[in-house]
């Protein structure tokens, strides 16, 4: 089967600043692929190479089996795209923008775009100028879905969306998955990608450092737990448990901070033997996900 996205040695330098370097990436049809990395890691650069807005310094990429530099128009016809630095025509209303982009695609039936706008709770009758950044993002998503593309390439789709609307977006992602369509989405938020993606590629400093299924990522993910007890607890109670990477004791033993890799089972069972007042699980940090895969030195240069 033709991969939805395939890059080989894809490299982009801006003058002598590295955007991405020797990127080898493969996204299968029908999967939701999360492209994870801190800001400036090269996510947008990669995506803009796929859409032929910028041209590779070396290497090549194919989208839906089509070369990005030679067949960009056919790619655009079949792909829905949400720009990372989203800006749309201020003087149009949301509805006018959808009609315009629909016309450029020879699509007159805007029901899909309207459906997405409704799910995301967007008022299409107002001008884009009057939209909040969240509303602009919603319109950006509606236009990306407009022609029911077989592949969606979304650059930071949830940025600016409030939590309730993010949930609505996750529902849209599930629809896409159920329909067997493909989605490539970038994010700098690990829990979000864990939640919606099937596989994850981690990019840092323009280099792809790991590709893993979400299950693998979760296995290796490091959780940070803060346990508050009603009694003093010795660090030694946790130090030898499976998966525990570090233990720090605060507040004379009443608070214990833990870093745990993989399953929390042993830690929770041990904690339950004491008088446990509160348990805070800090959301996995992206840096920690990197550490799980790859101990890179700090300060890897990155550019976007």
């Amino acid at each position, binding site marked *: 089967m033709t991969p939805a996205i395939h890059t080989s040695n894809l490299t982009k330098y801006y003058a002598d600043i590295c955007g991405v370097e020797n990127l080898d990436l493969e996204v299968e049809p029908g999967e939701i692929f999360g492209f994870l990395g801190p800001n400036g890691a090269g996510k947008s650069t990669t995506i*803009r190479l796929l*859409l032929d*807005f910028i041209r590779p310094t070396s290497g090549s990429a194919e989208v839906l089996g089509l070369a990005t530099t030679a067949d960009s*128009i056919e790619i655009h016809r079949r792909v829905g795209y949400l720009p990372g630095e989203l800006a749309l025509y201020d003087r149009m209303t949301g509805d006018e923008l959808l009609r315009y*982009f629909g016309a*450029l*695609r020879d699509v007159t039936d805007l029901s899909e775009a309207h459906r997405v706008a409704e799910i995301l709770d967007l008022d299409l009758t107002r001008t884009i100028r009057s939209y909040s950044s969240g509303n602009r993002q919603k319109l950006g998503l509606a236009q990306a879905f407009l022609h029911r593309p077989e592949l969606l390439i979304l650059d930071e789709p949830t940025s600016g969306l409030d939590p309730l609307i993010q949930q609505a977006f996750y529902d849209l992602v599930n629809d896409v998955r159920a329909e067997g369509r493909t989605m490539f989405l970038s994010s700098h938020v690990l829990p979000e990608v864990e939640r919606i993606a099937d596989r994850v590629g981690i990019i840092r400093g323009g280099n792809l450092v790991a590709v893993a299924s979400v299950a693998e990522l979760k296995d290796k993910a490091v959780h940070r737990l803060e346990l508050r007890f009603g009694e003093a607890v010795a660090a030694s109670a946790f130090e030898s448990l499976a998966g525990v990477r570090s233990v720090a004791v605060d507040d004379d033993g009443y608070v214990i901070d833990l870093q745990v890799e993989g399953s929390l089972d042993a830690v929770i069972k041990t904690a339950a033997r004491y008088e446990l007042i509160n348990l805070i699980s800090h959301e996995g940090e992206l840096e920690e996900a990197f550490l799980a895969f790859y101990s890179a030195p700090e300060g890897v240069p990155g550019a976007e």
Partner: protein
Amino acid sequence: MLSSLFRKTIWDRRRGYVWWIVGMVAITGITVAFWPTLQRDAAVISELLENLPEGMMSLFGAEDAGAFLTGPGYVNSRVFASVGSFIAIFFAISMGTAAIAGEEDKRTMDALLANPIPRHRVVLESFAAMTLLTALLASAVWVTLLLANPIVDIGLSIAGITAASIGMILLALSFGTLALMIGALTGKRSLTIGVASGTTIATFFINGLAPLIDSIKWTQKLTPFYWLLDPNPLKNGFGWQLLVLLAITLVCAAVAVWGFRRRDVAV
């Protein structure tokens, strides 16, 4: 109206355009309306003009006071060699800039190009919209002069009015496509406006002042203004010189297509 990039580009102008037309009609109308007064006081004005430095007269777009005091010479000087043409030129520059550099400056280019529209069509449909609206703007001069000519008896010919109006379109398009080209090559809005406007002003003065110094007189042939004003189409009708302006326009448009296809689009 939003069924193509061409139509959308025109739609973008729906609010301000009428004022460009109003300005153009006003300038032309006022100029013509003053003709009877000018003629009545011809002796005084002639004396005034003859005392002007030679460079001033040349910048007015008339060879001498005698030419200025003929109907075609006067209208040519006040409309085609100055304000009227400047209105058309700056309108065309604003459209040429908005097409690519403006779109990139507002960061909307990514979303636009994600549609299945080739880059050369972005350039060419913008060019077509600029051509249409610039032509209509210059037509305001054409219509005003055609209507006013018999009323104030200014002695213009229909062929002359038509040729000069076409010349104004081509002159404006020369600078408009220059802006389109710079935008296509660089994507930088301020640079595009600066270079295109700067070139307009500079070439206007070169065309007006170069003839005063024999050694640099030839440089006026490098300016688009020369190819409109030197053959004086308002008086003489259509001449091949206007084709030079057409050539400038087509070359700039071709370079714009080439330039925009090959480069990276700014975020």
